């Protein structure tokens, strides 16, 4: 891709005060990612690994403790006042829960109108036109404009929430499990909406989800996160075909199949034990305490990102061998 990224996150770190006095929760630790215009990028990883904190830190819902967020090359920390607010509006967050992210007492039209006013659109007729346009874009006929959001189905509500985020002409959407609360059958409608927004409006989208098959299909690239760090990144098809970090291998192999014959013949969960506490993360590679391939060197230093093929890299000393297929974290598990 020879375009420049619309969003660039550099060495972002977000720490929370821990309940253990004087200690910190290292929720996001030295994460760098890029999003190009009109691209859907996946972010996957174990529950509690820091995906939401990363997303929230990017849009400013959480205060990063170090690192930079650049929008169109401009470091947000150098902005203030109206310029900062304008840039922040270009970064929108879509929440998992379409039930709590909308005000029940508002009609669909009011919810969108409010966002347009915040964006500084004063002319009521222009707002009305824009509302209709937005409802069209998300596939909700403008008839629903006067309905209260509480009268809508989950999928419709999620589309209203998306229309609201689009009202301010964002460059980037951070979507935090945007379809988890939706039905299988409505999920497809909302996913196709994301695909269309990307194509028609060029909105870039960071897509956080647990459903790996869904992420693979929607995202051109995927980041895999473990305990606050990105451990692997690559084009989705390549990464799903040749995962090269032991964690990524185990994560992808854990996705359940719909065929009961396959599922019932599984030997047991691949991943054993719990994710270590982000308050006291392991030294060196953070995955080493649960990695079937770990050696002494893994505890010494953080493994560097090893480049495997165009735009595909993994932070593991064995990444090249895992990528080639001469070793596998799964082979050891099965033995």
């Amino acid at each position, binding site marked *: 891709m020879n375009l420049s990224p619309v969003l660039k996150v550099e060495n972002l770190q977000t720490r929370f005060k821990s309940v253990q006095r004087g200690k910190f929760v290292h929720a996001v630790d030295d994460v760098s990612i890029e999003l190009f215009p009109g691209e859907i990028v996946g972010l996957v990883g174990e529950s509690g690994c820091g995906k939401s904190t990363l997303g929230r830190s990017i849009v400013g819902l959480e205060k990063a403790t170090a690192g930079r967020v650049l929008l169109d090359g401009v470091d947000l920390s150098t902005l203030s006042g109206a310029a900062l607010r304008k840039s922040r509006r270009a970064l929108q967050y879509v929440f998992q829960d379409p039930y709590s992210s909308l005000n029940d007492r508002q009609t669909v039209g009011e919810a969108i109108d409010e966002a347009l006013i915040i964006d500084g659109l004063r002319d009521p007729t222009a707002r009305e036109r824009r509302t209709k346009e937005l409802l069209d874009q998300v596939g909700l006929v403008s008839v629903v404009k006067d309905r209260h959001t509480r009268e809508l189905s989950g999928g419709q509500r999620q589309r209203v929430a998306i229309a609201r985020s689009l009202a301010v002409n964002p460059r980037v959407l951070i979507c935090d499990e945007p379809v988890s609360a939706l*039905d299988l059958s409505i*999920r497809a409608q909302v996913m196709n909406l994301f695909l269309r927004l990307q194509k028609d409006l060029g909105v870039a989208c960071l897509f956080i989800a*647990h459903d790996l098959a869904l992420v693979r*299909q929607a995202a051109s690239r995927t980041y895999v996160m473990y305990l606050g760090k990105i451990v692997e990144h690559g084009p989705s098809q390549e990464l799903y075909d040749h995962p090269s970090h032991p964690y990524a291998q185990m994560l992808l192999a*854990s996705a359940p199949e*719909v065929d009961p014959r396959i599922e*019932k013949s599984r030997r047991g969960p691949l991943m054993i034990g*719990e*994710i270590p506490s982000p308050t006291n993360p392991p030294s060196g590679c953070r995955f080493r305490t649960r990695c079937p391939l770990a050696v002494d060197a893994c505890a010494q230093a953080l493994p560097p990102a090893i480049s495997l093929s165009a735009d595909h890299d993994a932070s593991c000393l064995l990444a090249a061998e895992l990528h080639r297929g001469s070793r596998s974290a799964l082979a050891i598990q099965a033995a």
Partner: protein
Amino acid sequence: MRNEPLLSVSNLTVNLLTAKSAVRPVDGVSYSVRQGECLAIVGESGSGKTVMNFAPLGLMPTGVTTMLSGSVKLEGRELIGLPEAEIQKLRGKSVGFIFQDPMSALNPVRRIGRQIAEMAELHLNMTPKAAEARALELVKLVGISDPAARLRQYPHELSGGLRQRVVIAIALAGEPKLLIADEPTTALDVTVQAQILRLLKDVQKRLNMAMVLITHDMGVVAGAADNIVVMYAARAAERGPVDTVLVNPRHPYTRGLINAIPRREDPVGAEFRGLPGLPPALAAPFKGCAFTPRCDMAVPACSLARPPLEQVDGNVFVACPVVNHGKVAA
């Protein structure tokens, strides 16, 4: 007695009345679960899965009047019509629960150990001291490492997976014969999900419990359940052994659901397959099949009469005359 199902639901109908609305989220549904067996319930959001399981046990929020008809038998004992005081005795004791909302399941300001012990005190009439010991046993049972230290922790100090293990420990505190788990792994990633499902299967086997598993993840069903009920708009569309229904789905809705699951061969960036249209509102019961407006096999007769659930082959039941008898007969 061995062959008697532990839970036997027949022709269950639930009407909910609130100040503003009347809905029938469950309309004549039948199924049963035996000891040591796991039944999965899947279906659209709002199709009645949660209400169907919790309303007969008196677990509905305040502000709604629940009207039940049909029969729900637990170990041969009829629950419908039983006084609230009697039902209350079953809750948490004969029947353990894992609720859909993971946030409300644990009290954020009380230690894990206390929360588990309380359930044991309540349901097994234990002294606080005996209950503490029981809590320790339970956290070991659900596979929590360093159990003594964990008992002193607060919920927010635990990972999502550990928290769900604690929720399961609480559900098991009363030594239930039936466990109802409503979306127990929806908030978890696939590695933790695999661990939690394995744990549920293990304790189910060890305690010889019956389990009802509500989920919308067909992969979860495939790995964990023996039988499945597919719900659509308050009714059962299809019912049968998981090994048959998932491999050879018959009802057009079941087929649509399974078809909508992304597959490995789908190219990156390809359109997602779904079902056309929207699920219906449940305000008024339908005359015909509620799936008709979204069904590609529908014939005019489908919107006239409610399709009965008919046994096709083996133990599979399908509520679709077109599938069961062909277009002409329908």
